[in-house]
């Protein structure tokens, strides 16, 4: 009898499982748009705000946008064809555009979108691809990421206006020119070995590859679309590599791993470092830690916050000398000797999965999410730099101003959008690590060694792209 029961129970279990599986697949007639946002948008409540606003607007249309509720780095290539991916996804351009080859994300007729006129062409280009001989756009830019310089105004020397503002423009020279930043950082190091002037993780590929770009390097040829032409060692990239090496000499081995990244906000707050490079989304954390430090010094919360806001300055990266030598003082009043530093940036935006159950409503959602109202709200809640120029409402928003300026003058180099880009990150990081390790240690590298290291990095990327293909 027991055996009969065990067989019956096993059969029941199977039937129940089948029934629940079948019932999972069934749904009402309501159109569901599954939206994948990044974790910060979820944590800070922006996603809820966006979904509620969309659902409220279209409540009579029997459509509902919901959180796709999956990892922010979902793999559309592997999940989408089987019906598991999101309908609309928010990602950086390199992530989103790697899906274009397999046609996993849909091309969008961008000229018909309300935001089309308000987004700079450079930002649109991050989502441009050539498929079967036709130029298509597969994403709608929402925000632009680029590194900016963060420094403490109250750590400037008292005499900066007389001794460190030779061009008399009321901007301290050390945050305006790399040679001066080098000189000031060196003076801080020489006085106190436990302190740093400029301190950053020099292995960070986003923050430091700009030094290579500034002297003629590029990632891929033909406007970042030809992975046969890897240009990270091209032009005078070795001069850029030497700058990384020189900067490493101002720091210690902490610059060759994540130490300065992990502790950047506390180090800046407690005065261990004077300046750091970071994306603007970390501003809130910098301010929080700085205010905390001031509170420790006896200020009230209000005073501490006010002082933190006053003393934490965000600005564009310093100018580079055209001859590439940051270790020698140069005439800062002669504009011809200087050039703006290029930086690597990214454009985050929305794309629509080719496997979206309802393409029309997915596009409507993207239109809604990129509307001025939503982008402004996003900027307010998440502190991002919006890609829409009309969202620039606050005149004091320096990050946005600088980013737009850089985007327009081409000093912001947008990450490549082809799939081979995944092969570049670790080799770049590893190359910078080698240069930084020597720069802050034995200091045996010559300029030719820099070129050798860059060539090795390019060979490594080439192997990963071509050998394994």
């Amino acid at each position: 009898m027991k055996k009969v029961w065990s067989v019956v129970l096993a059969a029941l279990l199977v039937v129940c499982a089948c029934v629940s599986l079948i019932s999972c697949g069934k749904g009402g007639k309501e159109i569901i748009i599954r939206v994948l946002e990044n974790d910060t948008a979820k944590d800070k409540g922006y996603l809820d705000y966006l979904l509620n606003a969309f659902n409220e607007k279209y409540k009579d249309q029997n459509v509902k946008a919901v959180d796709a509720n999956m990892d922010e780095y979902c793999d559309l290539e592997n999940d989408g064809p089987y019906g598991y991916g999101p309908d609309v996804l928010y990602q950086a351009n390199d992530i989103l555009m790697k899906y274009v080859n397999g046609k996993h994300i849909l091309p969008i007729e961008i000229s018909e979108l309300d935001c089309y006129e308000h987004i700079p062409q450079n930002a649109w280009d991050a989502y441009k691809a050539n498929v079967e001989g036709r130029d298509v756009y597969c994403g709608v830019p929402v925000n632009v990421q680029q590194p900016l310089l963060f420094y403490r105004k109250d750590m400037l020397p008292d005499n900066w206006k007389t001794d460190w503002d030779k061009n008399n423009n009321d901007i301290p020279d050390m945050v305006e020119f790399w040679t001066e930043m080098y000189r000031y950082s060196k003076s801080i190091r020489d006085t106190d070995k436990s302190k740093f002037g400029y301190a950053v993780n020099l292995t960070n590929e986003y923050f430091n590859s700009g030094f290579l770009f500034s002297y003629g390097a590029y990632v891929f040829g033909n406007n970042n679309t030809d992975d046969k032409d890897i240009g990270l060692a091209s032009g005078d990239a070795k001069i850029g590599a030497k700058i990384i090496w020189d900067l490493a000499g101002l720091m210690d081995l902490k610059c060759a791993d994540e130490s300065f990244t992990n502790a950047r906000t506390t180090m800046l707050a407690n005065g261990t470092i004077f300046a750091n490079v970071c994306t603007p989304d970390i501003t809130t954390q910098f301010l929080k830690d700085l205010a905390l430090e001031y509170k420790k010094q006896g200020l009230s919360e209000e005073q501490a916050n006010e002082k933190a806001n006053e003393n934490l300055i965000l600005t564009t990266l310093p100018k580079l000398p055209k001859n590439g030598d940051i270790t020698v003082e140069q005439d800062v009043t002669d504009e011809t000797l200087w050039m703006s530093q290029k930086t690597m940036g990214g454009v985050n935006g929305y794309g629509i999965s080719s496997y979206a159950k309802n393409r029309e409503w997915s596009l409507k959602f993207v239109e809604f999410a990129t509307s001025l109202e939503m982008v402004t709200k996003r900027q307010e809640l998440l502190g991002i730099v919006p890609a829409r120029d009309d969202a620039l409402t606050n005149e004091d928003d320096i990050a946005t101003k600088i980013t737009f300026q850089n985007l327009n003058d081409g000093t912001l180099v947008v990450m490549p959008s082809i799939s081979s880009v995944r092969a570049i990150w670790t080799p770049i990081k590893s190359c910078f690590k080698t240069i930084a390790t020597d720069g802050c240690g034995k200091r045996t590298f010559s300029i030719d060694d820099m070129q050798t290291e860059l060539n090795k990095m390019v060979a490594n990327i080439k192997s990963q792209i071509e050998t394994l293909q």
Partner: protein
Amino acid sequence: MSKEKTKINVFTKIGNRFKNGINGLKLFFKKCGRETYSSMAFMGLGQILNGQFVKGILYALAEVAIVVYFALTGVKDFIGFFTLGTTKADAWLQLAGDNSVIMLLRGILSWIVLTVTVALYLSCIKDANKYAEIKGVGNVPSFRDDLSSLLNKNFFKIALALPLIGVAIFNVLPIVFMILIAFTNYGGEIVPPELVDWSFDSFRKLIALGDFSQTFGRILAWNFLWATASTAFNYFAGLGLALLYNKKCVKGKAIWRAFPILAYAVPGFITLLAFQFMFSNGGPINNMIVNNGGQIVDFLGINSKWIARGIGFFVNAWLSIPSIMLLATGILTNINTDLYEAARIDGANGFVQFRKITLPFVLFSTTPVLISQFVGNFNNFGVFYFLRKDILTDGYLAANDTDLLINWLYRLSIDNNYYGVGAAISLIIFVITSVISLIVYVRSSAYKREDTFK
């Protein structure tokens, strides 16, 4: 001379067996009646002729189901297994096309169904023949008798059916799938909707391509050294700790034992992250060195091959020794203390006692664990992934000098999408670890003298 003889013997045996098989088959066809032939023509017909109607109908239904399966999808899937698709999908145009990966999976499934069909067909013929012979002599069991037998004498068949199907779907299918992926060009740019094809390229790259084979050779050599050294060290250190805590002279054993257990209780990846932080250039160890007037040591840096390997070795020991210690502590309590007393009377010193009594006893019980530790260390992904994931070393293709095969596999297949090469490496890892495990296990006393301590 003797080798030649053995060879001849083997061939003669095979020849004889084949001959016997053919003769047996001839005899079977000569002997079998219309019931058997009917079942050969259509499954279940023989059973119906034998008077076993329900069983016959079930067999017939099974044949119909199989025919329907093959007509609807089976034949297509079977052919798809060889072609892996001919029409490319286009998601933009919502053109379904062929998905090579799915076709491979369905192809494997069609092979499984085909195998089950053959087994079912043979069992049907055998059953029809068996009861046709019985029919003339005695009673043929009814369906009720068959059911009753399935619930009593043959209950194991019912009990094992579901797990067997589960194992086939959830274990065998993925393993076969992974093995077969190694023989395709799946990966890189060739992922669905692109059509995948059968190819030996992954193995050719591993063996023939300069950069690739060099990296593979270097990583494999280090992988062996790592797995052997860390398994041996962890094992003897765990055993040593257990022996130490077993000594009567050790005071406060419970407290001392608690330390390794605490280390064991913390989730592995948290420990690894903590060690990564501790040994980082701005971490507490370097802070202490600097505060004492020293220079920062680049423990896990680009030029720290052997220091980083040593740290990995230490970190792995930290994670593994407690489990060996706990195991050995349990086993040590089972050793008969009279053995030690007798050894002492015979004049054996402590080391001889360890070598002759403790070690054989513990080794006997822990050989399977030792094997699993070896396999675990061979495939130890976490240690070097957490410690040095951002580093590439000269002379290594997409890897560094502390990476194990499993780390390289991850870099290739997850970071770079080279699934075919990744599967080929997994296959090699599988062959290496399974061969070593089997040899060690079969040669161990735990296997040879299984009943000794029962």
